[in-house]
């Protein structure tokens, strides 16, 4: 199937001015390539500062890429037009900050209908708003439609945010940590809702998260970012069971997993953690592979040259010199 939304080799550099007047460049995203097909959920996993939010904003065209190209339905996207946002909607992490607090749920949803679909008829607008609330399971509708955002819980608010995105009838949803500010017990409902939208509407979803376990639950494919670069990707079970990049391995080993055998657990916590370091500054990122200063397998070539992409028959790929001679090329 042809991808509906695609980023091809996009980079985003921000120029920042320090207090003393000198400027420096933050290389937030470097040569990122990702494609979303209709009905597909891709998880973008990484730590803070890995560039995942910047990439989401590039895909939403909040930022113009420094280099590279965003393509919608196979054609290069130009500018952040209303037509573009009719197809691509972004959901933010914070449901408290993304609804207008002065207006009721009804207004927040109607506005999207009016602006994007020109629905002027009042009865028709009302019907559509009720339908949207039903789709995100805010029922009985009468209980929610005339509430102000502050009268709703975090989970209910995030549902309204999703309903508003759906009002536009987009082809792609970009979810930037859509559940991380919600209470633990209601996160699953939200993931199930997103999954249902994918199945019912054939929406493509980019699910951005730092939580690899929730990524596995929801997505089809995983893409791992580190320090602004994509380091690995592929079918989720392959990436989690058999990570090729040392950073992916570190990320998975570090994630909580109560099912781990007790022996592993003792070893994991008992082992001298050593100095594994922290992600590098993106103002002056390390040459070569950006993970090399923390990588236990770093070789000379890793310090000087960025690793090429190696693809494996199962659809997995990685940027790592360890796998240079493997895969399909």
């Amino acid at each position, binding site marked *: 199937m042809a991808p509906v939304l695609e980023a091809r080799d996009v980079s985003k550099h921000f120029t920042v001015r320090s207090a003393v007047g000198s400027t420096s460049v933050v290389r937030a995203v470097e040569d990122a390539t990702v494609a979303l097909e209709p009905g597909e959920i891709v998880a973008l996993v990484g*730590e*803070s500062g890995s560039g995942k939010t910047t990439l989401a904003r590039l895909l939403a065209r909040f930022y113009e890429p420094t280099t590279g190209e965003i393509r919608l339905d196979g054609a290069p996207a130009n500018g952040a037009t209303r037509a573009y946002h009719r197809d691509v909607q972004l959901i933010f992490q914070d449901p408290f900050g993304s609804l207008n607090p002065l207006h009721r749920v009804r207004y927040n949803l109607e506005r999207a209908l009016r602006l994007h679909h020109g629905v002027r008829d009042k009865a028709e607008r009302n019907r559509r708003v009720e339908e949207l609330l039903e789709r995100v399971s805010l029922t009985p509708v009468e209980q929610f439609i005339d509430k102000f955002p502050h009268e709703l*819980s975090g*989970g*209910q608010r995030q549902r309204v945010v999703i309903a508003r995105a759906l009002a536009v009838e987009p082809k792609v949803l970009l979810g930037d940590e859509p559940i991380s500010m919600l*209470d*633990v*017990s*209601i*996160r*699953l*409902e939200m*993931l*199930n809702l997103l999954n249902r939208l994918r199945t019912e509407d054939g929406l493509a979803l980019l699910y951005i998260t*730092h939580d*690899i*376990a*929730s990524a*596995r*639950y929801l997505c089809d494919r995983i893409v791992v970012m580190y320090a602004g670069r994509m380091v690995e990707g592929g079918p989720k079970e392959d990436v*989690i*069971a058999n990570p090729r990049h040392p950073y992916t391995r*570190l*990320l*998975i*080993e*570090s*994630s*909580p*997993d*109560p*099912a*781990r055998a*007790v022996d592993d*657990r003792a070893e*994991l*916590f*008992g*082992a*001298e*953690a*050593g*100095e*594994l370091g*922290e*992600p590098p500054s993106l103002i002056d990122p390390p040459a070569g592979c950006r993970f090399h200063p923390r990588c236990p397998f770093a070789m000379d070539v890793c310090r000087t040259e960025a690793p090429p992409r190696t693809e494996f028959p199962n659809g997995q790929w990685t940027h790592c010199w360890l796998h240079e001679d493997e895969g399909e090329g």
Partner: protein
Amino acid sequence: MTETLPGTATDPAAAPRDVVLDVRGLDVEYATGDDPVRACVDVSFTLHRGEILGVAGESGSGKSTLITALTRLQRPPAVTSAGQLLYHPRDGGPPVDLVTLSGRELRRLRWTTLSIVLQSAMDALNPVMRVGAQFVDALRTHDRRLDKGAAWERAAELLGMVGVSADRARAYPHELSGGMRQRASIALALACRPDLVVMDEPTTAVDVVMQRQILAQVLRLRRELGFAVVFVTHDLSLLLELADRVAIMYAGRIVELGTSASLYAEPRHPYTRGLRDSFPPLRAPLRRLTGITGSPPDLRRPPSGCPFHPRCGQRFDGCDERLPVLRDIGGNDVACHLYPEGS
């Protein structure tokens, strides 16, 4: 309320040992207006020396209120309205009730007996003081004979314990990375060798890789120094890996308390089970999970009977009328009507 007993005897971590803190019937209220909000209700548990007790709960479960009550850091309108916090001194002396201590007596116990690690190290550390100087400050306040040079040496040593190089002692907090700051604040909490460290979401603000490193260090230091930890977080999957025993809080009450292994394998309370199943597995086969329907209750208007009944899939007649009490059910303490008296 009956005193909380340690979990199954097969787990060495839960075998009866010296008690360091005995919390009995603790009530904390927010006295606002005519109806005080009861944020912690009848909370009882025992903490043993060197034990890590996890406290898990969602927003509004009372876990943060519990922390400020345990450490006596609460400010009005929060008031501890009932209960005892019995601290058993290392030397075997008679227990001291932290609730009734004066500010002056408390100050003597702070840091040497009881310390805290907060979620945001940036808020916990003084931004205009070098990191090392903050150690020196704490060390010399509690040991007046310690001279400055020795205190700086000790500061460097403490930072070294958590993997922060000694030369960083001269740095200001903003010059350290988030992970380093959090490690420094853990070292600072351990500076005067306390028996008990309360940790409030200490790794929530750092990434998973750093989280794992920090927790590995906490476990190593606990082995070496023998302090007990009350570790509070919303992340049950992390607690189940880290803690010896876990208390699950809901609407201000402990609804289940048991060893990590038993809570993971065989949670008794429907809320515990729901919470456990709210964390998708990392490796185990995937199945559809549902979380828990509804939202945590508003403590200003707590539900009648069992506070979990409006969200509970297994409720029956009476759950909305009678409040279940915490009782020993097969080794775990559980507050649920599914396990009737004498079962």
